[in-house]
C-alpha cells in the first residue's frame, strides 16, 4: 500500500471524493442509455437516439422527469422506515467506491501534489466492500416491509434471502484471490497482477464471482425480488418519484461496483491489456492512461449484464436457491481447497508449472465434455415402487406413517374451482 493513503491534505481527499461521486452519477446516466441501446440492438430496434448526440441525453431527461413526479407516501406505510429505506439503499452503493483503485500514482494537473487515483485503501479493503454492500440490502428489505403491501414484502424477503445466499459464494470466490495476492487490500491485489491477471490461474473463481455478482445486484436472470410477472414491482412497488429514482440509482451504481470489483480482483485492475501494456516499457500503465483501461473493463462487465438481460429468461425461485446453495457454494469450497494444495505443492517444489498447465487443460476439456452429455432423466421412484400400506392404528395406537409408507393424500388442486356467486 502506498504511504499516501491517509496522509493526504484535506483538499485532495475532498476533491477525489467529489470526483468519484460525479463520475458515478454520470456513469449511471451513461449506463442507462448504454443498456437501452444495446438491448435495442439485440431486439432489432434502434433505442433512444433523438436527444443529444446518439440519444445520450435521453437518460438525463428521464431522470429530471422522474424526480419531478408526484411523491406519494402510501397510507399503510410505516413512514419513517419508508423514507429511510431508499436512502439506506443508495449511500452504501457509493461508499464502496472509496477503496476501488482507478489508477496508479499521478500528479494533479497544475500542481505539484502527488496522489493515487484511489480515495483510500485499507488492509481489508475487499472485506470493506462486502460489508457496505451488505448494509445496502437493508434498504431493499426495509422498503419491502415499510410499504405495507404484500407484493413489496415478498420482494423484500426474496431479496434478503437471495443476497445472503449469493454473498456466501461471492466471499468464497475472493478467498483464492487473497491466497494468490497475499493481501486483502485492493491496491496490493492490482500490484500483484502485474505479470498475470488472476482470471487465468483462478478461472473457476472468476466464473463463480461473475454468477454471484448477478445474483447480488438483483439483475436478470436473477431479478426475482422485482419479478413483474409475480410481484408487480417487488420491493419498490409502492415507491414513486425521487424515492424510486434513488432505488434505480442504487441498482445501477451497485452494478458498476461489482463490475469494478471484478476488474480489480480478476482482470488486473487499471493495468493495460496484454500487448498495449508492453509498449514503450509500460508507458500506458502510467499517468492518466489507466483510467481508459479501468473504465473499458468495467464497461465490458456492464455489457455482460445487458447481454444476460437480453438473452435469458428469469429463473424460478427454488431452482435459483438450489443453484446457489447446492452447486455454487460446494464448488467454491472444493476449489479453495484445490488452490491451497496447489500453492503449497508449488512452494515445496513438488509441482512444476508445466504439469499444472497440463492438468488444467485436461480438467477444462473434461468439464467441456460434460456439457455435451444429455441430462439423464431421474427415474420417478415415487410411482414405480409400490408404496407400503400405512396402518394408522398399528398396534392399537394412532401412529404417523413411516418413510416409504403412503398416506392416502390426493394431489392438491392446481386451480381452485371457481364458483359463481
Amino acid at each position: 500500500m502506498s504511504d499516501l493513503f491517509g496522509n493526504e491534505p484535506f483538499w485532495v481527499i475532498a476533491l477525489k471524493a467529489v470526483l468519484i461521486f460525479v463520475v458515478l452519477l454520470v456513469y449511471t446516466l451513461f449506463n442507462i442509455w448504454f443498456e437501452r441501446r444495446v438491448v435495442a440492438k439485440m431486439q432489432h430496434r434502434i433505442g433512444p437516439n433523438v436527444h443529444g448526440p446518439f440519444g445520450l441525453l435521453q437518460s438525463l431527461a428521464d431522470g429530471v422527469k422522474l424526480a419531478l413526479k408526484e411523491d406519494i407516501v402510501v397510507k399503510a406505510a410505516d413512514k419513517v422506515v419508508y423514507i429511510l429505506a431508499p436512502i439506506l439503499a443508495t449511500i452504501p452503493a457509493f461508499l464502496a467506491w472509496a477503496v476501488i483503485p482507478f489508477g496508479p500514482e499521478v500528479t494533479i494537473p497544475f500542481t505539484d501534489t502527488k496522489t493515487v487515483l484511489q480515495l483510500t485503501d485499507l488492509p481489508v479493503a475487499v472485506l470493506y466492500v462486502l460489508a457496505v454492500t451488505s448494509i445496502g440490502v437493508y434498504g431493499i428489505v426495509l422498503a419491502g416491509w415499510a410499504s405495507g403491501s404484500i407484493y413489496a414484502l415478498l420482494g423484500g424477503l426474496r431479496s434478503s434471502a437471495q443476497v445472503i445466499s449469493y454473498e456466501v459464494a461471492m466471499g468464497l470466490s475472493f478467498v483464492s484471490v487473497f491466497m494468490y495476492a497475499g493481501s486483502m487490500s485492493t491496491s496490493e491485489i492490482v500490484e500483484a497482477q502485474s505479470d498475470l491477471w488472476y482470471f487465468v490461474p483462478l478461472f473457476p473463481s472468476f466464473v463463480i464471482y461473475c454468477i454471484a455478482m448477478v445474483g447480488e445486484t438483483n439483475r436478470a436472470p436473477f431479478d426475482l425480488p422485482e419479478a413483474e410477472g409475480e410481484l408487480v414491482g417487488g420491493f419498490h412497488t409502492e415507491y414513486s418519484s425521487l424515492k424510486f429514482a434513488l432505488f434505480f440509482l442504487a441498482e445501477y451504481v451497485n452494478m458498476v461496483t461489482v463490475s469494478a470489483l471484478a476488474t480489480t480482483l480478476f482482470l488486473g485492475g487499471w493495468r493495460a491489456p496484454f500487448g498495449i501494456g508492453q509498449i514503450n516499457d509500460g508507458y500506458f500503465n502510467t499517468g492518466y492512461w489507466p483510467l481508459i483501461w479501468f473504465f473499458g473493463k468495467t464497461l465490458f462487465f456492464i455489457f455482460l449484464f445487458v447481454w444476460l438481460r437480453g438473452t435469458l429468461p428469469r429463473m424460478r425461485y427454488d431452482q435459483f436457491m438450489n443453484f446457489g446453495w447446492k452447486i455454487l457454494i460446494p464448488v467454491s469450497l472444493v476449489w479453495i481447497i484445490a488452490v491451497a494444495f496447489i500453492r503449497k505443492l508449488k512452494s515445496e517444489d513438488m509441482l512444476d508449472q508445466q504439469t499444472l498447465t497440463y492438468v488444467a487443460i485436461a480438467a477444462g476439456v473434461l468439464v467441456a465434455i460434460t456439457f455435451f452429455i444429455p441430462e439423464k432423466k431421474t427415474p420417478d421412484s415415487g410411482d414405480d415402487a409400490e408404496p407400503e400400506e400405512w396402518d394408522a392404528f398399528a398396534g392399537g395406537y394412532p401412529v404417523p406413517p413411516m418413510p416409504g409408507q403412503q398416506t392416502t393424500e390426493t394431489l392438491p388442486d392446481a386451480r381452485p374451482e371457481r364458483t359463481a356467486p
Partner: protein
Amino acid sequence: MTTFWLLAPIMVIAALGLLFARKAVHAALALAVVMISLAILYAAQGAPFLFAVQIIVYTGAIMMLFLFVLMLVGVESSEAVRETISGQRLFATVIGLVFGITLVLAVGQTVTGVVVGLGAANENGNPYGLAELLFGKYVLAFEFTSALLITAALGAMVLAHKERLTPRHTQADLAARRMREYAETGRHPGPAPTPGVFARHNAVDTPALLPDGTPLEESISPSIVERGQVRSGFDDDIDTVVDQLATDEQRDSDGFGGEK
C-alpha cells in the same frame, strides 16, 4: 477519542430505542445502529479486520435473518404489554441493574490509562497479526469453537428436518392431471380469463365478457365472490354510457367542446 464521544450518545439512544420501541422491526433497526457504531469504534481502535467482520457477519447476516423472521410477523403487530410471567419485569430490572453495575465496575477498573502494544501487534498489518494468533497460539481453541458451531448447525438441521411422507407433485404431474380432467369432465385446462375487460371498469371485481356478451363469473377471484363484492352491472353500464354520450353531444353542440 472524538469518535467515541460522537458515537457514544448515538449508541445509547439506539440501545434505549431497542428497549422501548413498540414495533419489533424498529427495535431490530436500533440494534443494527448499535452494531454498526460498534464496528466503527473497532475501526477507530486500529482493528480494521474486526470492523469488516462485525458488519458482514452480525449486521449483514444475523441481523438480516432476524428481520426476515420479524417481517413475517406482519406490519401491524406490536408487542403485547401484558406480562406473561408474573413478576418478570421486577426481576428483569433487578438483574439488569446488578449486571450493569458489575460491568461498569469491572470495565472501569481495567480500562483506564494508556493502551500500549497496539503498534507491535499490528506490525505486519492487522489481518496478519490476527491470523498469527488464531492459527498459531490459539489454533486449538479456534478449531474447537468451529467444531462446536458446526455441531450446533447440524443439530438445528436435524431438529428442523421433516421427512416427506407423500410424493412430491411436479409441474408435469399437475399438467397431466389437468389434461385428464379435461378429457373426463371437460373442464378447461388453461387459466381462466382475467377479470375486468369492460371499457368502463377494468377492475378485478368486474367479470370478463364471453364472445356473446355474457359475463363470465368464473373470471373473478373466489375471495371477491366470497365477500360479495362482485360488480354485476354490465346492463346499467350501457345506460350510463348512453347518457354520458348524450350529455357530451349536447355540450359539443352548445360550443363547449374544446378538444374535438
